């Protein structure tokens, strides 16, 4: 008997009483002003949020936010200041020492500041390896809670996606909060009108 068969048959043998699946149509928390809540909680988890008006140049905004950035990685067509394209590099290691990476988020979550980023680039390292991460998100893509979020998210062919909420952090040394553990030291969310 293979290990798979042994495990499955032992599970079957040991189940004594079966329980039904509950009805999960739960009404999660709702916010009167999802945008205001999203901005407040994003700041609370250490992120930066900026509203972008129609017609404003995103490249200029990013330049102003990170004036010292030399290496900027992105594959987004509207980002013209990128110095590296994570779609065309040979290895993800080449992205090390990236100052700023720019990615597109699909859904924002008002209850916890999470933004769903479905991988849309060959090297997903770009989302994690840069010193600072900028996430573009349409402000009408903000939902109340994770129940709504899980109904709204999609995957691309790459088969990876992550909810990101603020910068990488640790409190492993004496419970002191430090931003920039292994991944982005800072995150800016640019909320666009479209």
């Amino acid at each position: 008997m293979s290990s798979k068969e042994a495990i499955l048959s032992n599970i079957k043998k040991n189940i004594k009483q079966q329980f039904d699946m509950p009805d999960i149509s739960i009404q999660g928390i709702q916010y009167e002003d999802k945008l205001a809540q999203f901005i407040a909680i994003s700041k609370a988890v250490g992120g930066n949020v900026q509203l972008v008006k129609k017609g404003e140049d995103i490249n200029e905004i990013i330049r102003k936010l990170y004036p010292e950035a030399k290496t900027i990685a992105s594959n987004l067509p509207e980002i013209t200041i990128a110095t590296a394209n994570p779609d065309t590099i040979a290895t993800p290691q080449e992205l090390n020492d990236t100052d700023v990476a720019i990615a597109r988020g699909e859904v924002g979550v008002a209850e916890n500041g999470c933004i769903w980023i479905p991988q849309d680039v060959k090297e997903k390292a770009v989302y994690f390896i840069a010193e600072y991460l900028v996430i573009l998100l349409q402000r009408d893509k903000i939902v109340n809670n994770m129940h709504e979020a899980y109904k709204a998210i999609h995957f691309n062919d790459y088969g990876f996606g992550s909810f990101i909420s603020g910068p990488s952090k640790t409190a492993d040394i004496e419970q002191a909060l430090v931003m920039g553990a292994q991944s982005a030291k800072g995150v800016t969310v640019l909320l666009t009108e479209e």
Partner: protein
Amino acid sequence: MSTKHSRAARLFLAQKEDSQWHNQSLWYVREKRDSFAMGLPEWEELRRLSSEIKRHTITHLDKYVEQFAQQAEANGVIVHWAKDAQEHNNIVYDILKQHQAKKLVKSKSMLTEECHLNDYLISKGIDVVETDLGERILQLMKIPPAHIVMPAIHLKRQQVGKLFEEKLHTEKGNSDPTYLAHAARLHLRNEFMTADAGMTGANFGVAATGDVVVCTNEGNADMSTSLPKLHIVSMGIEKIIPNYDSLSVFVRLLARSATGQPSTTYTSHFRKARPGGEMHIVLVDNGRSDIIGNEGHWETLKCLRCGACMNTCPVYRRSGGYSYTYFIPGPIGINLGMLRSPKEYSDNVSACSLCCSCDNVCPAKVNLSEQIYRWRQDLDSLHKANQMKKFISNRLTYIYNHPKLYRMCLKFAPIINHLPRFMVYNGLNAWGEGRELPTFAKHSFGSMWKKGKVK
């Protein structure tokens, strides 16, 4: 006849300042958890759903494990099955060998602790690097985790500073947490860059989609899997849940319960291998399928490993992770240890005051204290009962069954109030070990009632 836990706890408490700091730090996390939990009107409904979904999943686990494996395979992931720790370790090593991998970067996994994977791989010549900051500190110190979510909670910044001076060549005497964490960032960045393989645990496996969901604050699971081409997931079969609707319930509970955050920074879904890479999932049983059949204790399998039961436990907070003899401490660890080997780990069941606080914070409503109580009832049959307490209980049973004798004892009990301390608190009084006896009243309620003095 005290337990190993109580003896170790005494040593822990002898370091007065450190133990107070430990207690307060964990209580602070508990308070943060409360404020985020209470911020959600539906909190108790989420806990109820979480418990019910887990009950359902565990009692249909054969179906869900198979569905999960099928979905993962359809996504191009290679799925392995391990009956026990040894088989798990062999599978992981074989995968690494096939890829001629020399360096493995790992994000935190309690399962690999359970299987002693690191020691095994190191003995085979693999360079194993833990990448969670807390875990890395402990690995460099060569000591095990003291908490499942905050593994280095028992260490002070000076100890970390000293360690980093020696291992990472940081400035002498600098123990600023930001400075040290950023020194570790540089050190670990180099490990990620040069790793041949990355390993993660799993917080959840979604049967409907084959997703492996990993939650971290540091992003180390993502770094571990974004640079090397090979990704190995080590997961216990009880991590599998049905679908996204159920996942949304668990994700909302996990970080709020664990650290008092609205979410972990990263909630990553791994469905496929990197382009040109390989993804393997090792599904591990190692006793879990037997637990399903244990009528008094199967609900431990609902555990999400958030650690909330440790943070709230008055005994854990005042005795520290190393006082327990099983590698997972606190209320859940007491129970998991007993399920692993009652003979070996029975010393931990004394580490509970039956205050039931753990039951009230558990996001999956595991009946932790009730189970500890049950294990205590089994101690005698395991020949692990405290003989002195057993003797006292037997005498008391006799006294309670003989009312005349009982009344006479009660009449003379106040004498104890006036005895010299050494005659009352000694080896014969197991109850008085670490506790003060109450002062016995001069007149019993019974005698006062008879005299009409009770109004």
